[in-house]
């Protein structure tokens, strides 16, 4: 034997992913190392336990609402959903208000960085609405012209909807949101795996301009900047460099 076995070999052994030519080697190691043998025994016991626990679900009758036909017919779920959405909206307003405070962290004491409130609101709005299945947006991408005209009017400036298809994301639609300073807009994009990013826009009240800045709420990250009449934030749970590239694409498309 060529020395101690790596834990990865033990995993592969348990999961049947080990090169068959090496099974004897692992067997010999386990015979000589009772602690690892016990570990392997417990791992196998876990796998058996999972099947005993959850395999019976496979034989349960599937609820009617979970058929392809029912989902396509758009049969509603419980009466609870609209209430939860309202609760989420209220929390969003609270989070937006508190945003300047909890994003201040890195900047030390004193005032929050310019645009931090935009980032806080954008992150909260992303967390709330990215999880929304039936009503992720108020106006869908099918009514793009209406969507843009409506949100432009409410924000009091001409909005453009950036195209993120180069990054694999297509527009789902948009919604109007209450920000601390007045109305704000959120555009939602989704890729083929159901992953979502949102672009949040609101009035840049004092005309400050900033470079790209970064903020995070848990694993949701955002790049934000203030430019001209608006503050922007692109938020999502995607690889940071990819998010940065998409934020740049948004910036360039809105510039031109």
């Amino acid at each position: 034997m060529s020395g101690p076995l790596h834990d990865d070999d033990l995993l592969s052994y348990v999961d049947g992913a080990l090169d068959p030519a090496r099974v004897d080697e692992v067997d010999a190691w386990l015979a000589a190392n009772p602690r690892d043998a016990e570990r392997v025994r417990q791992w196998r016991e876990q796998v058996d336990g999972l099947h005993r626990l959850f395999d019976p679900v496979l034989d349960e009758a599937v609820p009617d609402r979970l058929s392809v036909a029912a989902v396509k017919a758009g049969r509603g779920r419980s009466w609870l959903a609209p209430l939860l959405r309202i609760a989420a909206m209220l929390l969003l307003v609270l989070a937006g208000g508190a945003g300047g405070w909890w994003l201040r962290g890195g900047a030390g004491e004193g005032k929050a960085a310019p645009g931090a409130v935009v980032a806080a609101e954008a992150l909260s709005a992303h967390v709330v609405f990215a999880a929304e299945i039936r009503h992720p947006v108020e106006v869908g991408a099918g009514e793009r012209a209406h969507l843009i005209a409506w949100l432009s009017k409410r924000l009091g400036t001409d909005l453009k909807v950036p195209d993120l298809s180069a990054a694999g994301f297509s527009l789902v639609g948009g919604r109007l949101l209450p920000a601390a300073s007045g109305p704000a807009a959120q555009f939602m994009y989704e890729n083929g795996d159901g992953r979502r990013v949102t672009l949040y826009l609101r009035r840049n009240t004092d005309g400050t301009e900033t470079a790209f800045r970064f903020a995070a709420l848990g694993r949701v990250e955002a790049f934000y900047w203030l430019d001209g009449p608006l503050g922007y934030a692109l938020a999502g749970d995607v690889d940071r460099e990819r998010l940065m590239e998409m934020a740049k694409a948004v910036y360039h498309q809105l510039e031109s």
Partner: protein
Amino acid sequence: MSKVESQIEAEIPGLRRYARALSGDVAQADDLVQDCLERALSRLALWRRDGNLRAWLFTILRNVWIDELRRRKVRPEQYGMDDAMEGAAAAPNQHDRLAVRDLVAALALLVPEQRETVLLVGLEGMTYAEVAGVTGVPVGTVMSRLKRGRDRLALLMHGGESAIRRVK
């Protein structure tokens, strides 16, 4: 119903099993599956016919679950995890009810990344590479999450008697 729709239909019991193990709650699990189906059916045009349908559905379910976990952090908990896990076990009729209950409770204590990895490999029988695709991390990360998750489960279920040895 189109061919791919019937293929999706055939995956529903498997999605329910995984969602049940992931969320530990019958109703919440079925909500996850419903949300997953809605997202999948609305994105069907983007589905590559030559791809792995099952892996795609599990990826969507996983993203729905992550979004939901995050949302629950923002709003007050709807129910405690203990209550949620109470109904998780699909009526164990074995004599080892106690051991099985331990596994359910221990599973709920794993961090989400470890829980999903332990389940995708152990329950769903996916290869490490498939799990890497579903969870969007490298295979090395999958294996380290799997190892940590399994060792933590063993520790939670067997306490000090578990032999945990670190190998660099």
